[in-house]
């Protein structure tokens, strides 16, 4: 592998990303880098994130300077051996650049598209990505989230495993008319979703409220879950930042929404105009506010969590892990105290409630390792 010349290219985060800007290089030309190193910070209209090197070797050439904006798939850097000839690197760059249009066309064809499924008269939107014969991976987002919550997780993980994400009832572009908003009702929808797609078993990754759904599903339907990863999950203790829930439901103007969303992150610079606009677009849809109120009333009545499953978790007979950003302001990190020993807890520094976005590389690696261990 290391005798090849390897390309580092602009990643595609989320279906709508078409280009990105190289904000900052974290390595110099001539330095040795390893797969997983934080190589470059990339800014999109939605979010700024660190891109981890997909390859190991010597960083021989930076093709894109800081401040430059290039399309997805564009060549950012060349990684090779120390003794690879400069002229070979020049040839490699020239060849890559001349094939960029073809690559973009291929990417276009490979891109998954949103699908819909009807469950008990309720339309759910989902995204299927990746294609492998193994047991697939299911993402369950948190309160007010959606498919896009997994923009840094679903694309990379779908390279090795089939993945599904969905807009839970009342969320995203799924139906807003919900009969009940509690964890059991949402779990039932997820179970029906899986059976309608003929998926008998999944690895589950659940964030926050989605973590609560994941836990409930694993306990009530052990045959469906192959492994479970929960991130800043509910279901482990009574407390929840109820002011955040209320403010999120009430915020209808960009400025209000911005101050609400900054609570989710350790680094509040991550909240971009596009992120705010995407959430406002969702919140403007008829029925959204009612649905969110209904869910909040059922899941967090009187500002406290209604379903605590901590005492039952030792019954889980599947690999299970719990991931928590050390700066979480929404669900207290103290809820990870006294978890049964069958659940491994990982704390993620420099992350708030959205560890899977803020430290996506680390979280993706933990998810992959758990799946591989099964």
């Amino acid at each position, binding site marked *: 592998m290391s005798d090849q010349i390897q390309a580092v290219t602009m990643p595609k985060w989320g279906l709508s990303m078409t280009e990105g800007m190289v904000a900052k290089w974290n390595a110099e030309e001539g330095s040795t880098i390893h797969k997983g190193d934080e190589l470059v910070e990339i800014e999109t209209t939605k979010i700024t994130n660190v891109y981890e090197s997909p390859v190991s070797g010597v960083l021989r050439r930076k093709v894109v300077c800081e401040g430059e904006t290039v399309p997805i798939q564009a060549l950012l850097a060349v990684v090779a051996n120390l003794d690879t000839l400069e002229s070979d690197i020049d040839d490699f760059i020239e060849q890559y650049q001349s094939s960029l249009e073809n690559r973009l066309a291929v990417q276009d064809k490979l891109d998954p598209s949103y699908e819909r499924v009807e469950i008990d008269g309720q339309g759910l939107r989902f995204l299927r990505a990746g294609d492998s014969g193994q047991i697939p991976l299911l993402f369950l987002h948190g309160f007010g989230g959606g498919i896009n919550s997994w923009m840094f997780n679903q694309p990379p993980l779908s390279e090795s495993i089939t993945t599904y994400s969905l807009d839970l009832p009342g969320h995203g*572009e799924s139906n*807003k008319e919900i009969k009940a908003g509690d964890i059991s009702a949402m779990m039932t929808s997820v179970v029906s979703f899986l059976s309608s797609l003929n998926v008998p078993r999944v690895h589950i990754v659940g964030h926050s409220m989605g973590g609560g759904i994941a836990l409930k599903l694993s306990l009530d339907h052990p045959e469906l879950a192959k492994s479970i990863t929960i991130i800043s999950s509910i279901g482990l203790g009574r407390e929840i930042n109820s002011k955040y829930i209320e403010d999120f439901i009430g915020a*209808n103007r960009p400025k209000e929404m911005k101050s609400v969303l900054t609570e989710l992150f350790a680094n509040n610079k991550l909240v971009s105009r596009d992120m705010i606009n995407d959430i406002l677009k969702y919140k403007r849809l008829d029925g959204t506010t009612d649905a969110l109120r209904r869910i909040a009333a059922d899941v967090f009545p009187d500002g406290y969590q209604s379903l605590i499953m901590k005492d039952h978790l030792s019954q889980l007979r599947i690999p299970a892990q719990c991931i928590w950003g050390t700066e979480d302001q929404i669900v207290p990190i103290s809820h990870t105290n006294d978890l049964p020993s069958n659940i491994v807890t990982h704390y993620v520094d420099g992350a708030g409630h959205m560890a899977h976005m803020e430290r996506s590389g680390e979280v993706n690696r933990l998810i992959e390792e758990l799946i591989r261990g099964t």
Partner: protein
Amino acid sequence: MPKKTFRQAVHEALAQEMRRDPTVVIVGEDISGGLGSPGEQDAWGGPQGVTKGLMPEFGRSRVLDTPISESAFIGAAVGAAATGLRPVADLMFVDFMGVCFDQIFNQAAKFRYMFGGRAVTPLVIRTMYGAGLRAASQHSQSLYPVFTHIPGLKVVIPSSPYEAKGLLTEAIRDDDPVVFFEHKTLYDVEEDVPDEAYTIPFGEANLTREGDDVSIVAIGRMVNLANEAADNLQRDNIQCTVVDPRTTSPMDEDTIIETVEDTGRLVVVDEASPRCSIATDISALVAERAFTALKGPIRMVRPPHTPVPFAPELEDAYIPNVHDICEAVRSLVGKSQ
């Protein structure tokens, strides 16, 4: 999210609100076509085909083709709104409002005030505006400042398909008379638009670009030109904020002031005639409320004070363009090209 044209977005807002609320009716000239004739029904659907398909679904009692008499059908719509319906009247070209202006500014705009708050007038007047279609001076004006001038009217100028659907839905559900401006060159523009109904509140500006150097406030179709200018300028490291006020009445004054306080420089882009326009209005607002934040003069990009020319070359020269906007911005940051 599916891509839809501006035309589809407006059609969808009308159809969804007509399904949701049986009091929503639409009236106007040739909005269906074929009334009283033995020939093809619904052959026309308005000059842009926006309303085509509504008559077959909702019937002639809710999709009313009218004679060519704006003073009659706008007056009828005002009366219907005051007595329990939610009419959406199609004024075709805003240039025609001269003959029905009394109904709009002396009647509809005044009912709530003169009846002591005991009357509501949930009327929407959809109308086409703007130059660029070689339609000559009687079919190309941008007359939204005239309506913005009248207390009691709400004035909405969407810049894109997403904006159009959400703002029209809000307009139909609003209890006051709303004049809804559609730029005739935007109908084929495409954008992601949700299938579900949604509303965008009035009086809430949208920032379509964010940058520290210059604020560009643009109206209606001009928002798209301002965005393009901002993207071009970014390549020269000039960062612009672009503000789309969405509605000129009510106007989100605070957002405009806040962004000018951040950047210290203002360019206003307005397709309306240059005197007593939205550009002059916003300039006065900023001069009054944020004068000390300004690092240089306010620049207005607008057409000359003439009728819209018919000769294609002259019409093109008349309409503010991306180059004009870029030059106005460059003149403020001292990087002229």
